Structures are given as C-alpha cells and as structure tokens.
C-alpha cells in the first residue's frame, strides 16, 4: 500500500495553499510510493480543521502535515492522532508544541519581520510613515511577524509605524481599511500587508485613490495576484517564500518521519529532498529558507506559477 500523507491547509481555494499542494504532489511523484490527501475546511476556522482532522484520523492516514488556523485549538485532536500512531507535523502556521512532532517555518520569523519593514524602508531613504494592514486579529503568523518587525524598528531610523489595522483576509474589508488609512494619514508613504489578501486589496485601494507613486504597497503576496499591482506601480516590490517549495518540504519531512528514518527531536536534522536539510531547534521547529523578493524585474517569470 502507498503511504498516505494528508496535507491540511487553513482553507481550500487560497492560491498560496493550492501552490503548496503542487509542491506536495511533486514530492509524492519523486518519492513514488506516496498518496497525497490535500484537504482543509472551506473557511479559516479551527472547528472546521478539527472536523477534517477527525475524518483523517478515522481513515488512519500515515501522516498529517497541517497549517493551523489556531495554535492551541487543534492540539487535543492532533494529540489524539498521534496516540493512534499518526505522525503529525505543522508547517507555515504552527501548532503548539505538544500538538505536533515538529514545525516547519517557511522562513524564520525574525527574517520575515525584518524583510517586510526593509521592503518598505528601501524605498524611503528619507524616512516616512508606514502602516500595517494585517489579516485577522487572531492569525498566528501575522502577529508574530509584526512583533518581530517591531523589534528591529531601531535599525530603520525615520520610519514610523503609524497604525496597524485588520482586514480579516476579506477583500472588501481590507480595501476599506486601506482606504481608511490613506484618509487618516494623508502623508502615508507605505502600506505593509503581510497577507496575500490584504496586499492585493491595498494595492487596488491605492490605485483607486489615485495615490500610485505616493503610497507604496508592500508585504507578503503571491506573484500571480500581485502582477497587476507591480505593473501599475502601486507596489514596488514584495516578498514571499515559495509555497511550492514549502509544500514539497513538508511532505518530505512527513514522509521521513512516517518511514521511521528520521526522528523529530531538538537538534535533529531531517532531509527535505531538493531543498536540503532542516535542523530542529529546542522547540523542534526549523526554518525552510529566506523569503524571496519579487519586483518588476522577475515577476513575469513567476506570475503563472503561483
């Protein structure tokens, strides 16, 4: 029988996760004896993920690799999965330590936190006002990155974060929040949106407000969704790790854990195929790679991939 690895995402239909699924399939093809079950709830709720994971437990899959909607809420269910012999790892958005065997960060949080402010600051040599447009108030990732960003603010004198608002990863709300930011802060120079929904909406809002060239939208986004914004000039540059690589790596790690040729413990190294190796820290988590910057010079190469 093929080994069954379940890739559980925050919600189906999000371009980023669809790309990660491609990576997972790539890994499966490379490994040969692996069947990928790509699944997740329809909206980004912990309850929805729990239902999905319960049915995976019932199917007795070999491994679950999950990007969590809530750090804590999945823990009891995932514990149950591990008790029934299923290998559990988290990737992208993590689960509290007791709920998984290891966690794969797309990049390290400090690197991302630094990257998003650097993207804004690079275009503001004189300094200026920037605002953050985040996803939901409960998103684990965004909150950590914003925290990390605040830690390194000292390295960017003259840059001032004037506000942090939440678009809830809804296009219309993000759009309205971005518009609100530009009204409240007429001198705003940049909007940092470390979320792929928010960054698109913010770019659209800047175009509609006629502020292209005055307000630079940056943050984390998908090349396919941001191609238009880069072309119009609403966004000079943005970053993202490669979700294909991320799905690929998570699958590889899950495979090795399930096969039993690797263990998840502090200090261990686990092979990620073409992505090299990941080394686990004290919290049994590790980082895949640095975020990658996209701008007008390279966007065309990526916009059709993910």
């Amino acid at each position, binding site marked *: 029988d093929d080994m069954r690895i379940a890739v559980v995402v925050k919600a189906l239909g999000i371009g980023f996760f669809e790309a990660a699924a491609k990576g997972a399939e790539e890994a499966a093809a490379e490994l040969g004896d692996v069947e990928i*079950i790509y*699944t997740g709830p329809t909206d980004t709720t912990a309850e929805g993920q729990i239902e999905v994971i319960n049915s995976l437990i019932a*199917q007795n899959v070999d491994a679950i690799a999950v990007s969590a909607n809530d750090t804590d809420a999945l823990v009891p269910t995932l514990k149950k999965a591990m008790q029934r012999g299923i290998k559990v790892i988290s990737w992208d958005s993590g689960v509290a330590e007791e709920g998984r065997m290891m966690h794969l960060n797309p990049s390290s949080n400090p690197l991302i936190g630094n990257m998003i402010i650097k993207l804004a600051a690079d275009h503001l040599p004189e300094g200026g006002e920037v605002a953050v447009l985040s996803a939901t108030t409960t998103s684990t990732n965004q909150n950590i990155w914003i925290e990390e960003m605040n830690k390194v603010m000292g390295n960017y004198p003259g840059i001032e974060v004037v506000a942090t608002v939440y678009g809830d990863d809804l296009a219309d709300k993000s759009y309205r929040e971005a518009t609100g930011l530009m009204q409240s802060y007429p001198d705003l120079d940049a909007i940092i949106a470390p979320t792929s929904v928010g960054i698109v909406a913010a770019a659209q809002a800047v175009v509609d407000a006629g502020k292209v060239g005055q307000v630079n939208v940056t943050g984390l986004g998908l090349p396919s969704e941001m191609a238009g914004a880069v072309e119009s000039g609403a966004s000079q540059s943005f970053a993202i790790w490669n979700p294909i690589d991320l799905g690929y790596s998570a699958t590889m790690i899950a495979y090795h854990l399930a096969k039993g040729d690797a263990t998840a413990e502090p200090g261990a190294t686990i092979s990620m195929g073409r992505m090299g190796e990941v080394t686990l820290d004290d919290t049994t988590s590790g980082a895949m790679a640095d975020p990658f910057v996209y701008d007008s010079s390279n966007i065309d190469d990526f916009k059709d991939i993910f």
Partner: protein
Amino acid sequence: MSMADHRPRSIPDQLTTPLARALKSWESLLLVVAIGIFILNSFASPYFLNAWSLSDATFNFTEKAMIAFAMALLIVAGEIDLSVASIIALASTAMGVALQLGAGTPVLVLVGLGTGLLCGAFNGVLVTRFGLPSIVVTIGTMSLFRGISYIILGDGAFRGYPADFAWFGQGYVFWVISVEFVIFALLAVVYGVVLHKTNFGRAVYAVGNNATAALFSGIRVGRVKMILFLLTGLMSGLAAICLTSRLGSTRPSIGTGMELEVVTMVVLGGVNILGGSGSIPGVVIAAFVMGLVTFGLGLLNVPGIVMSIFIGLLLIGVIALPRLWAKLRRA
C-alpha cells in the same frame, strides 16, 4: 327548552391511532433518510464502521444539538435566536477571563452557564418587554456579543485551561461514549419530556400557534418566551463549555457560523420555522443525519463546502420532495 330537544352528539376522541400517525410522520421519513445515509456511508468508506470513527463522528453534532434542543422549543414558540454562536464566543471569553483571575473548573462552568443565561436574558427582555421581533434583535446581539469578545480579547487568546476542565469536551464516560454524547443524550430525553409531556410544553405550542389566544387563555406568554430565551442562552453556555474544553483555548472567532447550522438542524428535524409545530425526536434524528452526512463525506475527503451543498439540498429536498410528490399525485 330547545337544548333538551335533542340528544348531544358524542364526538370520537381521535380518528386515527397514534401508531398510524407516527408512521406517517416526518420523524419516520427522517429516520429512513438517516438509515439510508448510514448504509450508504458504510458502503462508501471502509473506515466508517469503526467504533472510534463513529464516536469521533458524534463530535460533529453534539454541541450544535445541545443548542438545537432549546432552539427547537424557541422556534416552536414562534421566535428564533440567531445569536447563539456569539453567545458561545462571549461565554467562552468570560470563562477565559475567569481563568485569568484564577478560577478552577467548577467556577469556570458556572461562569460559562451564567454568561449564557445573561445573554439569553438580554435577548429575552428585548423581545418580550419591548416587543421587538426576535430575528432582528438577535441579528443585532449576534454582532454585539461577539463584538464584546473582540473588545476583551482583541488578537489574543486565552489558553491554559485546567486539566480537569478538558473532561467536558475530550473525556469519555465509558469506552467510546464521550461525555459530550452523554450530555446530548440526557438533554434529548429532558427536552423531549418537557416539550411533549408537560404543561409548559403545551404552552409552548399554544404560544407558537396563536400568541394572542394563548394570552387570553391565561398563558403567561411573555414568561414562556423569556424562559425559552434563557434556556437557549443556557444551552449556548453549555455548548461554550464543551467547545472551549474541546479546543482548549478561547478566541473571539470561536463557533463562527454555528447559528445557521443549529437552525438547519432544527428545521431539518421537522420544526416549522414559522412556529407552532415540531418535535424533539425529529431534532435528534436530524442531528444524526447531519453528523452522518458530514462525517461520511469527510471520510471521502470531500471539501466542507461541497458537503454544505448536500446539507442545503437535504434541507430543501426533505421538505420539498413530499410536497412535490403530493402535488404530482393530485395532478
């Protein structure tokens, strides 16, 4: 005297036997549907017929069903409460606050139930004292209650509930029989008896069929409705305890969208959304139907949104098909 001129006619009590009526009832139809789905599921997935799988499947509906019982009574009485999921959020948040203040499990439970009651009272007062339509009031409180959770929690979360608190949502009473399932089963019996065998239940039906005539008949309509709102709040508080215990944490987004699933369950159970009729056995079967459909499709890794198509079709189909059938037969 003209009255004495003719003998009073005697009127039979009932024309049909209770059994005949039961066989023709909605509940029987629903039971057939439930059994059909069960059989389909066991053919569709090799993992379905497994005690632990089935036990896990019950978590898909136990919390919703707890609320659905009280909601069924409320809807029979001609009202509705769309704020139940938000009450869960607020009750869970209140428990989190209590936890920060050092409360232990018994206090947490009291806080959860108490918050539910308070929210129910708020809805109840607006509806019964001010005479506002409940659908509108609870659309408002739906935002208000969850909004308060957001104000308190913001982007934070409460975690670190005591180990024994986990019993409610993660504990098992016996083998695969979970604590939640036992609560569900007990409540099914209690609500069934209350609605079908007591004066209060009769009053609920009377209010739902004609509140004015019920009032003129000496039923304290406002009080009946108030009690039902309190019960619905209390059940939401109970569901909040179970859900919080199962998740082990509180975030303001907890239970989002649950109100519609609860209403769907009640309506699928044959409760007339316009009030006046419905039964608890119907709701119990509907809970199983919904749990079986979602779990069965889950085993086939069908995305949740596609499942919701099935639920939607089931909701309309189970009501529409008998009517369509009757129409075609008449034509």
